[in-house]
């Protein structure tokens, strides 16, 4: 895979513990390496350092050197080089590791500093945790347990600021809760490239806002909610819906484009409440697009397919599989498959297997759309590379199924199996579709499913587990967050049954999880670049796979965060 470049490591000492870190690492990060937490608000590893919250004040010392001779001054008591401690505390976020740097985070001075900052942050804070969405994931709340006074010495009136500013279509602001850390301003400017937020007025009356008439409406606006350390910026969608501590977190992958931003799906009792980004320094840092956060709404969408049908009549899955198998057998040689760039690697592998057994071809429909050079690439299919790697396709997909169209017209094709794709969006007319028998295996209703002879509902990305291969050829896994609708089974189950039915064998209805492991056994045995892997050994942040075989393909993606196209 990819070799990590060697970096110069230097040794620093945090609370008496030596740790080797790359030169220039800041004290907050260096301390984290030895398990020392340096509390902070304004510092964010992916944004410029401004050092304004003052929560990360620590004591700093440097090895003593005789100014005249430039030789180390030794401490006779310890036999080690003497450390000159600075009388004033320094901020950890802007103090970078230099050889022999010593840091103390447990002294009375550091404790006083933290308590002082906490008290100051709270004097003008509304302390409305019981009605605040941030409760449970609020840094103020968290640090108040360690460094709060427990009572207030503040008897004056608190600042009054706007309470419900609609900053944009998805973000609501409570200025009284804002601690003026400026993370959101820096994010908008530095990452989203939309310099739309700012502070007006000054001092303690400073207020976060947009210029009148402008809105925080870029496709990354909700990241400001994620990085807001307090409850000032809230997601209008999630506001007042659910206490975060009731929510279960499941690792997932954003399917809107081939970037494959890493995400966390937050759910409770089978219902998804929100999607937030998951840190992956090689893919999406700590960000994701707003558009990817509402994808969970497809789970309970009105056009969601929940029932199996044969010739528009409700049927059991077994009946549908039998009918489909009969249909395919009756039209041997005249069956075509249309798979999807939204299918998982495992599904694509089984579809390829199915295609091989029918000695037929599989098409994929391309989804090329606008990219933003940040975390939305031009390929709106999350997994075209999976289809390439599994051998399902050998060339890049096209938007129009022209071959299939002429094959239908010439009568060469009698049966089309579509995996969630609407063929009418790819140049096949409804009248063409009515000339053939369609077997539709998918999550949502569309014109194709409406015209299909057999419809088998399947699961969304939130209800199943699997992998995608993103634009970097990084294989990334996701896990089922919520159960699917009653009676709807995993695509892998459907595919396995269909294949065995065609072969005249019957299999027991297998659990999807077992099937996933089983599929991986054959995947790694069949595809050399996946050879050492199994689903469980893929790291949470994914793994780059060998892509040399596809180096010459004219992929549509242009530069995005952490991705440069191979020229």
């Amino acid at each position, binding site marked *: 895979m990819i070799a990590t470049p060697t970096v110069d490591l230097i040794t620093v000492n945090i609370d008496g513990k030596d740790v080797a870190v790359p030169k220039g690492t800041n004290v907050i990060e260096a301390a984290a390496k030895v398990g020392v937490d340096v509390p902070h608000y304004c510092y964010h590893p992916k944004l410029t*350092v*401004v*050092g*304004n*919250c*003052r*929560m990360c*004040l620590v004591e700093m010392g440097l090895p003593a050197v005789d100014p005249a001779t430039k030789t180390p001054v030794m401490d006779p008591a310890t036999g080690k080089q003497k450390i000159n401690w600075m009388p*004033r*505390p320094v*901020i950890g976020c*802007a*103090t970078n590791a230099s050889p022999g740097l010593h840091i103390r985070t447990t002294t009375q001075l550091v404790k*006083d*500093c933290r308590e*002082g*900052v906490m*008290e*100051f*942050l709270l*004097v*003008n804070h509304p302390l409305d945790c019981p009605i605040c969405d941030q409760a449970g994931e609020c840094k103020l709340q968290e640090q108040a347990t360690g460094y709060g006074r427990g009572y207030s*010495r*503040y*008897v*004056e*009136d608190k600042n009054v600021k706007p309470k419900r500013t609609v900053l944009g279509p998805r973000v609501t602001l409570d200025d009284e809760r804002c*601690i*003026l850390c400026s993370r959101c301003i820096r994010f908008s400017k530095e990452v989203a490239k939309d310099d739309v937020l700012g*502070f007006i007025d*000054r*001092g*303690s*009356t*400073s207020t976060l806002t947009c210029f009148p008439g402008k809105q925080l409406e870029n496709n990354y606006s909700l990241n400001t909610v994620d990085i807001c350390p307090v409850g000032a910026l809230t997601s209008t969608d999630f506001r007042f819906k659910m206490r975060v501590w009731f929510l279960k977190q499941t690792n997932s992958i954003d399917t809107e484009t081939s970037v494959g931003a890493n995400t966390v799906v937050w759910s409770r009792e089978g219902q998804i409440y929100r999607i937030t980004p998951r840190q992956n320094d090689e893919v999406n840092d700590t960000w994701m697009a707003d558009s990817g956060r509402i994808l969970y709404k497809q789970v309970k969408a009105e056009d969601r397919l929940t029932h199996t049908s044969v010739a528009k009549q409700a049927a059991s899955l077994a009946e549908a599989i039998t009918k489909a198998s009969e249909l395919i057998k009756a039209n041997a040689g005249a069956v075509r498959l249309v798979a999807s760039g939204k299918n998982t690697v495992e599904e694509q592998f089984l579809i390829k297997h199915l295609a091989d057994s029918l000695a037929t071809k599989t098409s994929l429909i391309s989804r090329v759309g606008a990219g933003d050079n940040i975390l939305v690439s031009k390929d709106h299919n999350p997994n075209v590379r999976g289809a390439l790697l599994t051998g399902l396709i050998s060339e890049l997909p096209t938007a129009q199924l022209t071959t299939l169209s002429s094959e239908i017209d010439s009568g060469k094709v009698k049966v089309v199996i579509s995996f969630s794709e609407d063929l009418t969006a790819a140049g096949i007319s409804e009248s063409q579709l009515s000339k053939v028998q369609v077997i539709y295996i998918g999550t949502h209703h569309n014109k194709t499913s409406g015209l299909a002879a057999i419809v088998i509902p399947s699961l969304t990305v939130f209800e199943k587990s699997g992998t995608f291969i993103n634009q970097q050829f990084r294989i990334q896994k996701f896990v089922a967050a919520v159960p699917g609708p009653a009676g709807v089974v995993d695509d892998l189950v459907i595919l396995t049954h269909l294949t065995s039915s065609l072969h005249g064998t019957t299999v027991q209805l297998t659990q999807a999880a077992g099937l996933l492991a089983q599929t991986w056994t054959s995947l790694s045995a069949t595809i050399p670049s996946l050879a050492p892997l199994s689903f469980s050994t893929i790291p949470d942040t994914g793994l780059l796979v060998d892509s040399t075989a596809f180096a010459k393909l004219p992929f549509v993606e242009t530069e995005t965060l952490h991705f440069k196209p191979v020229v």
Partner: protein
Amino acid sequence: MPEQRRIIFKHIDSPGYTNDIACYQQNGGYETLKAAVLRKPEELIEEVKKSGLRGRGGAGFSCGLKWSLLDRKSGKPIYLIVNADESEPGTFKDRYILHQDPHQLIEGMMITCFANNVKQAYIYIRGEFPEGARILEKALAEARKANFVGSNIVGTTYSCDIFVHRGAGAYICGEETGLIESIEGKRPYPRIKPPFFPAVLGLYQCPTIVNNVETLCHVKHIAAMGGEAYSKIGTPGNTGTRILCVSGHVKRPGYYEFEVGKLTLGELLNDVCGGPLPGRTFKAVIPGGSSAKILRFGERFKGKRKVGAEMQDYDWGLDDVPMDFDSLAMIGSMAGSGGVIVMDDSVSMVEALANINAFYAHESCGQCTPCREGSLWMKRITNRMVLGGARPEDGALLKNVADQIAGRTICAFGEACSWPTQSFVLKFGEEFKTYAERTKDSSATLATTPLV
């Protein structure tokens, strides 16, 4: 009583002296610049180092050292910024230079620019000096026309222009990195140091010198008389002259230029300024701009200090304290910007502090938590006290709030806003404790001269 020694203020208020270039040149103006450009720049820097000149803006940092920290190897252009923000309450010396003798500053600037190979210079003048800005613009136009500023000055290949940049009423722009942000067209939030030391990463991330108006005027005279000769003025370590601005309760407030350290506070207030107002006695003095720690009359200061090569004991009353950087630092305050604010026995210290706290709460930029919230909190406490809500414990609370600010912020504003509170409470603690009693008597609350 020591005589004033007017070097910088030589022509201030002198009859017939006008601020145009003709008058300046008739009085020998720009001759020093003409001579300076014939010398090697390094020699000029050396003269300034030898002179022992310390910055007159507030911190008293060695000017020569400041220049020597400049990153000359980066290949980036070097900038000079004149800090003419004169924003420390109690200070009003630069006003007179800018209004009455602008060419003195321009000459000092051009010598500094030549010595440091500065590419472009700006004068950051406070917004409250609209007239001063116009005078400077006119003076610069004259100096450009006379070839002292601009391209190939006085027949050399050296070029450097000076532009005037007006502030708009923000104290924080007196902080050098806040000032730089302000010139860059941003909110004047002081920068974190490290890494943004102006000498390395200043204006437009280029090496930058930021000097006070008076400091650069001294440079002109150092170039004229030589660093050696200049260093003999004043006292060792506190060389040259300095302008002391006296305001408040004295008979003759105003500005006075003395050799540094050759005058005591008592001489300044009693002899030079004529003593307290009739029927009054001095109560307290802030010796270096409103952020300097207050001193109480009647206090005694004892300790050892270096005089020449040896250590000597000192036992001073407030009147005996020499007005220099080191002596004022020794007794726990600072010479700062030279603004001496005097308060007599008519003043309630709680009310005076309330006035000061209102200033700092208004001027905190709001960037750092302790200063932003602490300065406002202190203001609210002192306001409440004055408005009849004083509690005996407020003094201790005030001090504690101030203690949580100083030394914990990006810039020195943290100290500037907490030192008054810390020192007022320390020196006049009793008054803070009993203020509640005093204000119970409603007739006593009607201060004859309200401060808030």
